[in-house]
């Protein structure tokens, strides 16, 4: 059997992410997959040496476009921990609202891309159509569709008026209704199940050992979600991680699908518990010497920030480990012995974000 080498990426129509995979294929069965990264490395971590700690928020927000709010929130929370600042409860819950809206639109975007990976264009369009409502919420409340830029050290810089809260709730009801209509298609459609069930299987033990994160980990049956830690406003909310046990592409997509609905619920909870009060506390001085290790849950999984302050306005070290970085080793374990046609499905099932990975 002759071995064909198929170059997959860095510019590839089904994978709008700049990662290159060299696939060694025999009779359309993948035997080996070797990754190559580094196409979008921007050196954002290094920027902490020339931008002050306040300006770094905007840099962190640009690590990734889709989960920018959560990067910003994670960075702000880390600095607040380092400086010993307790932010107002209203700010905590406002951060939750925007974070969960981001999770919803990220998952909807992913569900669309996933549908596109197995050639279901109409479903792709449908998910993106639903997503547009959430983008509108972002634009109307924070002033920007993607990079909402609402975090500042010590709180948030935008507020939600009662009218806006009511509008968000009504829009969420529509989004939830439209998403639920697609539940049957996404989970039970014959063609979709043929393409996802039993594809890219990863057992619970494998997922744990390979350090998978987020829906990739939860799709294999590990109930671990960083939101369980109760950081920020999550301490006020009822939360139970979404878990599926099959460990295949179907399970991972189902986890994300159910998380969209869960996030809608979390936004509702946060809105119902939103107290009156200040938006931000005043921050004095520079981050002191010390280290902070902070983890949050992003749409793609667990994100880790390690920050070292040195008493000046610039940080000594900022280290960001994004979820995709953790999910690439599991991906490499999943690819061998799959069909060539299933490669996009498996690659997308970890929700790759290469710009995140390389920073």
């Amino acid at each position: 059997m002759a071995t064909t080498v198929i170059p997959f990426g860095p510019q590839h129509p089904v994978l709008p992410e700049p990662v290159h995979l060299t696939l060694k294929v025999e009779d359309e069965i993948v035997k080996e997959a070797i990754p190559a990264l580094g196409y979008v490395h921007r050196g954002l971590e290094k920027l902490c040496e020339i931008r002050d700690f306040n300006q770094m928020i905007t840099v962190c927000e640009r690590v990734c476009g889709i989960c920018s709010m959560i990067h910003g929130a994670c960075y702000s929370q880390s600095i607040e921990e380092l400086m010993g600042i307790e932010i107002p409860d209203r700010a905590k819950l406002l951060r939750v609202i925007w974070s969960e809206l981001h999770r919803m639109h990220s998952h909807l975007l992913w569900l669309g891309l996933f549908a596109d990976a197995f050639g279901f264009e109409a479903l792709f369009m449908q998910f993106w159509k639903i997503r547009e409502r959430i983008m509108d919420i972002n634009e109307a409340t924070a002033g920007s569709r993607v990079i909402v830029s609402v975090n500042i050290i010590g709180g948030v810089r935008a507020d939600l008026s009662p009218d806006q809260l009511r509008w968000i709730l009504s829009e969420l009801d529509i989004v939830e209704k439209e998403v639920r209509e697609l539940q049957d298609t996404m989970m039970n459609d014959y063609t979709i199940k043929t393409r996802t069930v039993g594809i890219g299987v990863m057992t619970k033990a494998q997922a744990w050992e390979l350090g998978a994160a987020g829906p990739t980990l939860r799709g294999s049956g590990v109930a671990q979600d960083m939101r369980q830690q109760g950081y920020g406003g999550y301490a006020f909310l009822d939360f139970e991680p979404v878990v599926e046990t099959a460990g295949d592409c179907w399970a991972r997509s189902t986890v994300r699908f159910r998380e969209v609905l869960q996030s809608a619920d979390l936004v509702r909870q946060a809105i119902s518990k939103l107290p009156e009060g200040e938006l931000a506390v005043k921050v004095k001085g520079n981050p002191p010497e010390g280290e902070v290790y902070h983890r949050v849950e992003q749409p793609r999984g667990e994100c880790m920030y390690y920050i070292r302050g040195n008493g000046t306005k610039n940080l000594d070290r900022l280290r960001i480990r994004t979820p995709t970085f953790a999910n690439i080793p599991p991906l490499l374990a999943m690819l061998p012995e799959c069909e060539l046609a299933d490669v996009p499905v498996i690659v997308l099932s970890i929700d790759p974000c290469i710009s995140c990975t390389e920073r």
Partner: protein
Amino acid sequence: MDTLILVIIGLVAGPVLGGLIAGLDRRVTAWFQSRQGPPITQAFYDVAKLFGKEKMVVNQWQILCSWVYVIAAATSLALFFAQSDLLLIFFVQAVGAVFMVMGAMAAKSPYSQVGAQRELLQVLAYEPVLILVFVGFYLVTGSFSVSAVWQVDQPLLAKMPLMYLALGYALTIKLRKSPFDFSTSHHGHQELVKGVLTEYSGPYLGLIEVAHWYETVLVLGLCALFWTTNVAWMIVLIGCTYLLEILVDNTMARMTWRWMLKRVWLLGIGLSVVNLIWLYAG
């Protein structure tokens, strides 16, 4: 003389109808997906643009192959309009399809190579179905000629409904619609980029697009033969069939070639054979 006129009608109607159908297809697909969609004449603009591009080929073979494909497709449609022999039409069309694959094989790109292999498998899947459909025509009319089909006094659909379903498979493959759009699809969104068409470019891709229009009209023409007694009903039949194709395209994921071989050979050929036995016994 009549035959010549019919041939000319066939040669002209092929691209015109085919392009309009392609445009209409995109428009209806857009509606299904809640989009605006392009103008109906967009398919013509696309091909005109392709013809205006620089001639670039990876391999001289591709020039020959794309020309043979378009000529074979046009000839088979002309023969169809001239009410010629169905088997002849079939073989001329098959020659074209094979040449298109050869052109893709001639390039060294792995996308094009794997796409070509998949395309061959598709050809292998739908050609037996077509042959069996023609055998069905023979059993009903006693001839392989298209003109004989026009002489029947009741729609063939009544006698060969299962055959029509099997032809649906061939139509879906030929139109490159989901779930059978894995060798190439109308949007390059697949793991093989544009599959078998990856290495064709510029005017030669334009030729292949024109050939595709001819083939679309030809396969729809075969569907039309199932209701020759009344032109109005014939148009309704084709319209419904095509709408169903678009619906199938929009409600199904793309499948793999292993899945296709099982389905089309088992179901497509199975349906045809059952229908043939029924015809033979009846």
